[in-house]
């Protein structure tokens, strides 16, 4: 077996403080773009040894289990991907009982114990302040969870959209979550609204420790055929666009938000190479997240982190 590749975490030059967490480098994953448990089945011990993200963000967890949307769930566009997955998950109880112990073991089982475990950020979504509060309260009780991200912006699910697009509702939801935990709270903003910086400010006023953006842009594709018989291609009707196609939009929104808030910003959207990560960092992001590029190259985040280190 070949020796472990040098990991960027070993170099303190790119280590970074984020909401009280020390991360080995500034590259994490976007929620819902990496399933560490499934990836371990596919790649075995190498996944644990060479874990590509400085912190791991779970897919969205809801109170009740969700099966997800009917097929088809994907559509390839020019330089992008529309997904309509529908947030399949085991529900809060299933996540805490089944996935969390596995994730904690996986993220803690690094070859170099001195680096400590990869921090776990659990992403949750509710349809009301009460539901969000219940989810955050449950996460607060678990030491394995380092931070909590609130999904108020998923365009696939009607309940998520309104909360994140309305600054007043958003501040109320974040406020309810703030009283339920002292763990770092990250608010994943929706890009599908007129004034994203206003929503970022509302999240900050509600007590968020950081904001992350951009989530996918609402998008659609029609089924093949002709004329008025053509319905939506995706089983969920509309979906969310990601990938290089949204990179310039992401940069504009990250730049605008970073100029308005005092809290750290996690920037994402179409990051494929170090230059794209550099753009987001230079626009004011503290961390960058890689999502769709991981689908094409499962170690894309590590490649970008290593290239960032080489530039520093």
């Amino acid at each position, binding site marked *: 077996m070949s020796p472990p590749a040098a990991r960027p975490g070993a170099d303190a030059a790119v280590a970074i403080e984020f909401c009280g967490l020390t991360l080995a480098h500034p590259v994490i994953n976007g929620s819902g773009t990496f399933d560490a448990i499934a*990836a371990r089945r596919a790649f075995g011990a*190498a*996944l644990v040894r060479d874990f590509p993200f400085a912190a791991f963000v779970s897919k969205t967890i809801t109170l009740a289990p969700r*099966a997800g949307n*009917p*097929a088809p769930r994907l559509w*390839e566009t020019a330089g992008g*991907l529309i997904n309509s997955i529908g947030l399949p998950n085991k529900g809060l109880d299933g996540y805490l009982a089944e996935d969390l112990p596995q994730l904690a073991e996986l993220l803690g089982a690094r070859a170099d114990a001195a680096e400590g475990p990869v921090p776990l950020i659990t992403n949750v979504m509710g349809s009301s302040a009460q539901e969000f509060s219940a989810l955050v309260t449950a996460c607060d009780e678990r030491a394995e969870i380092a931070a909590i991200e609130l999904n108020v912006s998923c365009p696939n699910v009607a309940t998520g959209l309104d909360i994140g697009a309305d600054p007043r509702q958003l501040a109320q939801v974040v406020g309810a979550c703030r009283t339920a935990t002292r763990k770092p709270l990250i608010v994943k903003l929706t890009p599908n609204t007129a004034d994203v910086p206003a929503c970022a400010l509302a999240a900050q006023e509600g007590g968020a420790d950081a904001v992350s953006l951009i989530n996918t842009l609402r998008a659609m594709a029609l089924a093949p055929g002709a004329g008025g018989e053509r319905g939506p291609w995706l089983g969920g009707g509309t979906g969310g666009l990601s990938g290089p196609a949204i990179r310039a939009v992401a940069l504009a929104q990250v730049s605008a938000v970073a100029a308005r808030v005092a809290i750290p910003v996690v920037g994402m959207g179409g990051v494929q190479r170090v230059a794209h990560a550099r753009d987001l960092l230079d626009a004011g992001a503290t961390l960058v997240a890689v999502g769709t590029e991981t689908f*094409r190259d499962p170690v894309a985040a590590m490649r970008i982190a290593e290239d960032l280190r080489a530039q520093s």
Partner: protein
Amino acid sequence: MSEWAAAPAPFVRRLLTVLGVDELGAYRVLRVADVETPEPQPGQFAMLAAAERWGGGEDERPYLPRAFSIARRRIGESHFLLEDVGPGTRRLCELREGDGLWALGPLGKGFSPPPPRHRAILVGGGVGIAPLAILQDALEAGAETDVTVLLGFRDGARARGSSLLHGAQVATDDGSVGHHGLLTELLSKELYRDSRAQVYACGPAPMLEAVRAMCTTRDVPAQLALEAGMACGFGACYGCAVPKRGGGYVRVCVDGPVIDASELEGVSEHAGAAA
């Protein structure tokens, strides 16, 4: 026969070199130099993308890699069966000796050996014959299994793909080669002759559904290799979900692509290809 082991995929895309793209009627066999890939389980797949000019085709696609069954392993080589049905497969069909190919794999859960004293019936439709070739190799390496091969194609140009396997009975939709009619008519005859069999099937959704229904009715075990559009191949995107019996979904990439017929209510159109 003991289980065929599935090794974990290397956690990295590997840049392989194309040895050749051979014409096989309407199909192409893509051969790449591949020394280091762990021995795949029959039925496992790889995510492929051309190293150059991936993107820039029709509608600026392809963008994502494409999933292909590993059709065959030879010493130092992997083979994939291609049919030009869209921008991804078109670009792969254009590859020439010396070109680069990104490959991630082997991925997914492949076929299991037949139960003791059961013969194997391999049922393949169109480009779906690919995983049955490596399966036939594995079954015949075991020597004691009686293997029957039934392959169906739309027309004569596609029926030339049958030479990927050997000893096949062929059916065509247009009657140009072999039996004029459905593959399931050949399967029905075989099961009537001797139903103590393990069926292995891969092909278009309507064919797989017909095979599944026939095997379920006759209480014959069947392993179905499914196809679904997927972005990643390793469980990250949740795009390749197909409904399972009793509700919910399975992911074709990590729970399959080979799924036992008993786990499915049916095989629907939307498990169909990403081009």
